[in-house]
């Protein structure tokens, strides 16, 4: 792996749109060429070199490791659409980090703003601090959000994480979110996401979930009326076959959605026993 080091020279006055900071864009370019890549500052086009010191030359996408130092909380879209390689951010990072990425790895040693890993389609995004709203969410109006890959957030995340997430067992796609604690509407409109929360959540968790598994190891502020309690379990099987042990209360839902896969049998009143549409909360 070759290291390409970026250091922020001055804090941008307006949000800096730096979607060029990806291994894909840096591949095969020298430091001088990388410095000439275009970034957007307000309504002006600037070059990456005006804001960053750059050292190191790019090689193959998968061999590139980009290390960025500085407070990047006003730098947006780092790692957007990347397909391979690695990015390490030492500091806070702005909106849309790793959005639509489909491969490789991003590690943020700090906090991330909204839309971190939005519509992620593969690869791994790890954030050691907190993240804002819409982690791994679908952009406005999209019916498919995150479709593959893993997002890990050590701290707390905001509202509406993983909205419209779509996973598929036959397709071998298991979009997964692991986080410390979460706001409201976690996994709203989920179509097969896997979400594991170490701590507590706010309200409306799993709202409109058609398929998917949400595991909350802490408390939920208010469970939606449309979730039906099934009973206590000692072990949970996730969609990808992995197992989690512990004492949980199992709910099925969201039963307000027509296409919910965990159907209630009209004759017997039993809830069909599939791993779809489940919410587990620590007992």
């Amino acid at each position, binding site marked *: 792996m070759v290291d390409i080091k970026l250091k922020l020279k001055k804090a941008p006055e*307006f949000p800096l749109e730096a979607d060029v900071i990806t291994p894909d864009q840096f591949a095969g370019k020298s430091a001088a060429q990388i410095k000439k890549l275009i970034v957007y*500052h*307000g309504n002006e086009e600037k070059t990456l070199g005006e804001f960053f010191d750059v050292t190191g030359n790019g090689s193959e996408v998968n061999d590139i490791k980009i290390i960025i130092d500085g407070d990047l909380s006003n730098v947006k879209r780092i790692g957007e659409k990347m397909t391979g390689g690695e990015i390490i951010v030492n500091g806070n990072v702005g909106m849309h980090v790793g959005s639509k990425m489909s491969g490789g790895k991003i590690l943020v040693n700090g906090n991330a703003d909204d839309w971190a890993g939005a519509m992620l389609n593969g690869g791994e995004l790890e954030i050691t601090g907190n993240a804002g709203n819409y982690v791994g969410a679908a952009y406005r109006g999209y019916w498919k959000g995150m479709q593959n890959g893993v997002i890990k957030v050590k701290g707390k995340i905001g509202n509406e994480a993983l909205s419209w997430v779509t996973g598929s067992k036959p397709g071998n796609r298991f979009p997964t979110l692991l986080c410390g604690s979460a706001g409201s509407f976690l996994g709203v409109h989920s179509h097969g996401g896997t979400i594991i929360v170490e701590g507590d959540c706010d309200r409306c968790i799993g709202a409109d979930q058609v398929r998917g598994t949400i595991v909350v190891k802490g408390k939920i502020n208010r469970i*939606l009326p*449309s979730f039906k309690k099934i009973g206590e379990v000692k072990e949970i099987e996730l969609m990808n076959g992995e197992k989690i042990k512990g004492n949980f209360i199992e709910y099925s839902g969201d039963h307000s959605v027509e296409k919910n896969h965990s159907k209630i049998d009209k004759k017997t009143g039993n809830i069909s026993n599939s791993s779809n549409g489940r919410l587990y909360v620590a007992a």
Partner: protein
Amino acid sequence: MADKNIRTVTDVICPFCGTLCDDLEVDIDNKEEKIVEVRNGCQIGTKKYFSSNPSVHRYDKPLIKDNGSYKAISWDEAIDKAADILIKAKRPLLYGFSSTECDAQGKGVELAELLGGILDNTASVCHGPSLLAIQDVGAPTSTLGEYKNRADLVVFWGSNPVHAHPRHLGRYSDFIRGYFRKDGSNDRFIVVVDPRNTHTAQLADMYIQLNPSEDYELINAIRAMLRGVELEGDEISGVPKKIIIELVNALKSCNYGVIFFGMGLTQTLSHHRNIDAAICLVRELNDHTKFLLTPMRGHYNVAGANQVFTWQTGYSYSIDFSRGYPRYNPGEFSSVDLLMRDEIDASLIVASDPASNFPAAAVKNMFKYPLISIEPHHTPTSVNADIILPPAIAGIECEGTAYRMDSVPLRLRKVKDAPGDCLTDKEILERLVEAVKKKKGE
């Protein structure tokens, strides 16, 4: 006896609220070019007509701030100065547009694109969440005339038309007789869902008082119940289960139902997810009967702003042109969020008054930078502007097109001349576009 000094204009469209009543009659004094009487309008619509008369609150010349006070300047100078401010800015905000006509809104889009700025309208702080929900799950809707003729169940959820759309009940939704609702009010069942016992709630056949900000849970419970799910507990969102069952039965058994929703649903906790759930509820109700929903739009042409922005840029509000092409992301490019994060370095406010309804911190940031206001009256925004460009009031002093809350376009009428040197919003924006083009050498 007709008074020779007075002329009367009939079939006037009221440019105040989204109801766009089209039956006003306005008397104008010919000598003084003043409105002396308005018939058929409600109290708030009528007030707007009278406010157009020359007064200490009305601007009639372009003004510029000079050492803390305002001095009158020529239009040429004002446009030149305003264009300079906008060109210099790296992230200019163009906001408002909801109380003017569609041609002016179109010019606003052109200007924002030229400047590489942010373009937003007041939906950003009212029915923006409805638009987000519609983008997520669609919306089954209809025109107000259909409701008038057919609806036998009308739900007002988080809206209070008695005060916000005073003639809505009389013209479309309650008292009016319709083709299939010959007995008006007696042929309709009115449901009001609101945490406050409003004056609309007092007219209702069924009033459901829920806990504030728990609308999502209630809609969710109704949806689950519709699907035959037994609910646990005795009450949901503070509403006893017995009453929810009654409500579900009423919703299912009507012939033609409609939900009119307002700020009480869009701007309380859960915002667009409330509307998302309400739309899904309506969709599911259509398994049982005919059911539709319509947002109660506030500003008379905010629906038009959404229409115009959408057909010209692809997006209805919160649009960023900084990269030369339109991009859309409420939360990132919406005015309040941008101002809260202090990302704007100049603003042009057209036909709206953000200073009186944005959060104080956002307004403070707006006032830190150059501010241009296209506004006929003294408002908290305009009295803090650096340049004030006085327009003729659309729908009173110039013609134009406006979209009703159900997105039906209506042609506004001119009833009198504007005072002083006022130009129309469209002319002002057109001149700004020309000036910016010239300065940029395009």
